């Protein structure tokens, strides 16, 4: 299972490196949304709740793009049949797709978070580390698990560009609550972030439930 997952992951990453499709699009999208928020809110710098909300909503919307594109190469080039014919567990496919999405999100945040600090954030971004790093990692695990599940669910539908955001965004509400509430005191420049543990626990619980649920049900998707 692990070698198969690694092979699929390597294939996905190679395609992404050559076509440069998902990650650059997601990055460009986040910067555009920052500009939209600047004009929409008519604010030059944000802090606290507003900053954390803008950052997380932007990241989640960018994740929608990544999720929509997750099975795109297989669908457009017909590689999905070969993958399904291969005598490997669907779990390997899930692990590979979720890991690919996780890495895309990390690559996105590597650019999107510093850009946010540069363009919109009032307080110094560096003071939010290393707590912000933990929040980002926990959120990315949940996003990757739910994203891989949703993209597989939508892969066989007629209106998949429509289904992905409709399905993904409500599912991400608990994740947004945890991530945004945990980030808020960090972006206010608070010395001792209150309630951080509680929201990290929420994120970890969300991750655990959705990784397990996705692993359990993925076998029933994409099987023909």
């Amino acid at each position: 299972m692990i070698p198969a997952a690694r092979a699929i992951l390597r294939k996905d990453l190679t395609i992404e490196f050559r076509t440069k499709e998902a990650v650059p699009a997601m990055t460009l999208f986040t910067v555009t949304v920052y500009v939209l928020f600047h004009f929409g809110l008519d604010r030059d710098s944000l802090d606290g709740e507003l900053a954390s909300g803008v950052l997380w909503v932007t990241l989640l919307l960018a994740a929608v793009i990544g999720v929509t594109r997750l099975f795109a190469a297989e669908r457009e080039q017909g590689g999905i049949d070969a993958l399904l014919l291969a005598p490997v567990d669907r779990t390997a496919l899930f692990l590979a797709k979720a890991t690919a999405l996780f890495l895309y999100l990390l690559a996105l945040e590597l650019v999107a978070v510093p850009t946010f600090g540069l363009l919109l954030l009032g307080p110094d971004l560096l003071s939010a580390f290393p707590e912000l790093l933990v929040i980002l990692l926990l959120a990315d695990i949940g996003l990757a698990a739910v994203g891989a599940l949703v993209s597989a669910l939508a892969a066989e539908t007629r209106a998949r560009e429509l289904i992905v955001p409709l399905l993904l965004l409500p599912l991400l509400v608990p994740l947004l609550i945890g991530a945004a509430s945990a980030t808020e005191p960090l972006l206010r420049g608070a010395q001792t972030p209150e309630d951080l543990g509680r929201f990290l626990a929420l994120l970890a619980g969300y991750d655990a439930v959705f990784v397990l649920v996705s692993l359990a049900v993925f076998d029933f998707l994409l099987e023909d």
Partner: protein
Amino acid sequence: MYSKGFRPLAAVTIVTTAVAFALVFFYAPLDADQGFVQKIFYVHVPMAIVALCGFVAGGIMAIRHLRSGDRSWDMRSYVTIHMSIILGTGVLITGAIWAKAAWGHWWVWDEPVLVSFLVVFLLYCVYYPLRFSIEDPERQARYSSVFAIAAGAFVPINFVAVRLAESFTHPRVLSQTGGSLPGDMRLTFLVCILAMTLLFVTLWKLELTSKRASMQLKKLRARLEAA
């Protein structure tokens, strides 16, 4: 045509619903600070409880479908979620009316149960476009079941998360629906829950019968055309 025991069930439902309404209007005392409008509680809260249980039950039926491969369980899961969405619409409307009467606003964001319910409702609304944009019936059943399971697991997490987010700013001293109801109000409330559950089961059976009948009709039509 109806499944066995449907008629007695329907009769019991009618009687229980009538008793429940009689209790609501003639037995339960008027609420001290909200007055008559508080009566909507006896419709709103049972509807919400039954709808949420329906969502989770739909997930459990979906698990049975995936485990046994028996597609009738998918049909049951679909009808359960369908009925819960209908009740859910009622919950949001009665909730808005109650909020307007009690707090003066059609919608209040600091009522975590209402907000969680909206999120769950929005998620389950996607069940229809997902289900009906898959043509192959076997695949449709499988994908819908996967959705029902994931969404069923989502319901409790979402409630915990929204409550955490709210208690951050608004510590809740006393829960609206908590066990602190006086005796006669509690009795009325319990009868209302029973009535709503029976109504749900009755309508569920009716809808299931109609779905099966139309499926059979489709099959017969196909055979007629083939002949």
